[in-house]
């Protein structure tokens, strides 16, 4: 992507977010999905998502649905980038957990 990696402050909450994505790294998850998987509060979750996206670990896009037809607003979907996947795998390997990619 031609983007420099930015340092990410790793906390337990950040690890939970990464863990939620690493269950199936190709999945695109909305904030509400990550909240349910990781058991995080919204006040903690969204700053982490934005930090990881700003660091290039995540990319995000709007859900391709028509709000009027589905009866709800569009969701913002996040997905791990290759960099994010590699860095998350390294971190969890450091903690002694294997990650299947």
């Amino acid at each position, binding site marked *: 992507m031609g*983007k420099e990696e*930015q340092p990410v402050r790793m906390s337990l909450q950040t690890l939970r977010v990464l863990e939620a994505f690493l269950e199936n790294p190709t999945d695109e998850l*909305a*904030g*509400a999905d990550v*909240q349910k998987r990781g058991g995080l*509060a*919204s*006040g*903690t*979750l*969204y*700053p982490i998502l*934005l*930090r990881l*996206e*700003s660091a*290039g670990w995540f*990319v*995000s*896009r*709007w*859900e391709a649905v028509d*709000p*009027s037809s589905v*009866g*709800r*607003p*569009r*969701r*913002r979907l996040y997905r791990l980038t290759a960099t994010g996947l590699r860095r998350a795998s390294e971190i969890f390997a450091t903690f002694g957990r294997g990650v299947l990619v």
Partner: protein
Amino acid sequence: MTPRDEAQGGARPGLARSGGLSHWLVRHAARRSPAALAQRLEEEWLADLAAQADAPSRLRFALGCCWAMRIIARDYLASAARASDHATEHGAIVLGQHGPSSYFQRTTILFLILCLHVFVIYGFVTGLAQKVIQAIPGPMRTTILDQPRAREMPPPPITSFLPTPPRIFSLVAPTAQFPPDALKDSFIPQPLPQPGGSALPPTRSTQVIRIVGGPGRGFPDPDDYYPLDSRRLGETGVATVRVCVDDTGRLASAPMIAHSSGSARLDVAALKLAMAGSGHYRSTTEDGKPVSYCYPYRIRFQLKQ
């Protein structure tokens, strides 16, 4: 259709379902986020709000968004210093832009810190801190001072100045009691001796019985006239006052100090007491009839034990 329109359009169903408070909180939090993220966060949060199961969850989610807004704003300001070319599709995160207000705030804070340092250094250099410390009253201290010793003055030999023994007021008893007996002056004219050696027997003797008056009933309490300064300094003494009292017990003239007590304060107090007692003197009587008469009496100022 802009993202805001889309967000508002898409938020209406959620609004209808979840009530106003949670939506208001989410919208409020999103709109107070950094401008570059406000639209995106509003739509994203409203969508995730709609995914919450029940009203308490939605309220918790909305309150969390308010907290997230503060953290995101802080992170945004922190990362604004770093240049970034990261751009995504709609709702791209734009970092690395300094607003003029940011420069103004930083400059103001820096200036205030600089002024504070200058003030502190100025205070130390000029001794301002020492003045402030001196201006602050210290703890109250009580020092026991030695009482000045009363001047040991021998009582004046009053008797040598007075032809008759005067009466004495004493402050030892606040209700001054005066001796009820009055001095009785009596004189008996002696018959002149006749030339030739024979003396005629006295055909008639003239005898005037004089009872000298003095302070009577209702006379002021001498203790009330003992000067406070004299009490504090331990001054004691006996002042002899000469008064002229008419037949009604009133002063016929101003009293005078016949013999000083040794202290001007006590002498003045004695005169005041004598003046205040006008109308309360016992008149001098001659053969039982009140007459005007001048006589001295003594006032003793003595500290109680």
